[in-house]
């Protein structure tokens, strides 16, 4: 290649420093994730005494065996799956419907309604008034509340509206109208089938957000049978003694040190198990995330 020949010495230095910088960054980001994986498959006492650094030691599934016996974790898992599916369905449909209407220049009063949606992006009542409102509505300990709160995001609406404006020609509607198609029929039969790309972006964004969220559940759900995975994780990962009691490690023939090691190393397995769905979709979903950020960065 011509460019290869013309690389000056300054360019070679630049490229070397550049690649070294990126390689260092790569290791810094990757190693903690890698360590969690190898630690979860290793002998707990090897992890607890610092012998696991680059490769798993004493490969076993003991930690995972314990995790599968921990009921509260699975109750949380079930709840999170339900909240994720429900919350995503609700949020994606509301976003598509609203964004489509906002993309139509011939909607009378559009500017006013859009402004109504934009104001709360900058001023909001805050936690306490929202909490009192939810309590007034008798929605405390109602699982619907964690799916409803936050389901309308103006940010997502703007991204989606930009998508509609740039990919679906307005003339298409004029043509459909002549064929006797109304607004809603046009939206469901013509617009939605053309919008698979943006629907994928919205589903992935919203599902990961729901899966990882814990704030609303912390505030509005007290019933232990309703709490999502992230709240269970918070109890396990941020307290030292909880784990040992929960797993009934007090009984048995292992000595105390080993129990402590086990309780600590089970946490690695729990991190893996609870991130698994997100990690599984990540390679496929990555391009949709990036696409979402790209569309969002165009000024709509």
């Amino acid at each position, binding site marked *: 290649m011509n460019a290869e020949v013309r690389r000056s010495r300054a360019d070679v230095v*630049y*490229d070397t420093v*550049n*690649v070294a*910088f*990126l390689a260092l*960054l*790569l290791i*810094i*980001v990757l190693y*903690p*994730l890698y*360590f*969690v994986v190898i630690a979860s498959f290793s002998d707990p006492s090897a*992890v*607890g*005494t*610092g012998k696991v*650094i680059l490769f798993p030691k004493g490969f076993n599934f003991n930690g995972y065996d314990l995790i599968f016996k921990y009921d509260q974790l699975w109750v949380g898992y079930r709840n999170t799956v339900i909240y994720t599916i429900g919350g995503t369905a609700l949020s994606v449909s*509301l976003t598509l*419907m*609203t964004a*489509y209407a906002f993309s*139509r220049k011939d*909607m*009378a*009063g559009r500017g006013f*309604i859009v402004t109504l*949606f934009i104001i709360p992006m*900058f001023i909001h*009542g*805050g*936690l*306490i*008034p*929202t*909490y009192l*409102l939810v309590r007034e509505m008798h929605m405390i300990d109602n699982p619907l509340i964690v799916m409803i*709160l936050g389901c309308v995001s103006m940010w997502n609406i703007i991204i989606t509206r930009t998508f509609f404006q740039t990919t679906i020609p307005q003339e298409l509607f004029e043509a459909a109208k002549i064929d006797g198609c109304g607004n809603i029929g046009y939206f469901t039969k013509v617009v939605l089938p053309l919008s698979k790309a943006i629907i994928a972006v919205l589903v992935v964004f919203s599902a990961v957000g729901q*899966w990882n969220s*814990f*704030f609303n559940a912390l*505030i509005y759900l007290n019933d232990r049978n309703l709490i999502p995975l992230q709240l269970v*994780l*918070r109890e396990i*990962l*941020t307290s030292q003694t909880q784990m040992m009691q929960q797993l009934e490690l007090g009984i048995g023939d292992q000595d105390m040190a080993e129990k402590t090691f086990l309780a*600590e190393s089970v*946490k*690695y397995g729990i991190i893996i198990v*609870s*991130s698994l769905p*997100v*990690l599984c979709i*990540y390679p496929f979903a*990555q391009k949709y*995330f*990036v696409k979402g*950020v790209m569309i969002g*960065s165009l000024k709509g």
Partner: protein
Amino acid sequence: MIDRVKENIGLYILVLPALLYVILFDYMPLYGVLIAFENFKPIKGIWGSDWIGLYHFERFMHLDIFWVLIKNTLSLSVYSLLAGFPIPIILALALNSVRSERFKKVVQTVTYAPHFISTVILVGMLNVFLSPRLGVVSQLLNSAGMMNGPLMILTNPDAFSHLYVWSGIWQGVGWGSIIYLAALSGVDPSLHEAAKVDGANKFHLAWHVDLPSIRPTIVTLLILSCGGILGIGFEKAFLMQNSLNLSASEVISTYVYKSGLLQSQYSFSAAVGLFNSAINLTLLLTVNKLAKKFGQSGIF
């Protein structure tokens, strides 16, 4: 007007559910924030309770904890901004001038990944890695002879802001770079060619061509981040708190949660929350105005 609404009645039906959400969960709490100016008793309701004007605001500002909260909140966000804002830009510039597409892909895939880890898991990872006796960091430092005894970093107030900020950078650096990469992909290749003819090396290209080309993007994002400078999120600070590091980790949002929901001082904490969002909005508007004054486009 009415005819034009009738003509597109379907569009209003599409917007209606989201509009109801916005009115109920965005505007009702805005109205509910009135309790900040009264001695609110839930039984008496918003109109039945006694008005006491700015009493709660004054009380808050005279509390000892007021300056602690301001200091903690401000220092966390200024530190996050100063350390966290430039790094994604550097990463994007570095990625943009990498010669191997495959290496670039690998770095991107790995550095984007932590963005999808929940805050609970992130803080959980910090807790297990840095755990006083059993954590891998403590083990390594002890066996290398650099430390003797348990690692007390998690409970040390002086270490809190560093852990908070750098774990945030670890999680967000890759994701933050996407938007700059998108902007960089729009840089006109003929600018590079012209600069090369003038004898520019790759460092010159990155510094004198690429960086100035993405300045509008940088300014826009800087404005947005400055607007959130008192908006340190609840989740991470709350999860990283323990009884020993509170002097550094108590921020406005965690204080609102504790005084409001755990101690039921509704009016007082609504006032604290309102104070916080008023300052945020003022900052956003001020920075936006400043940016316009210096010839940048601003976000409004």
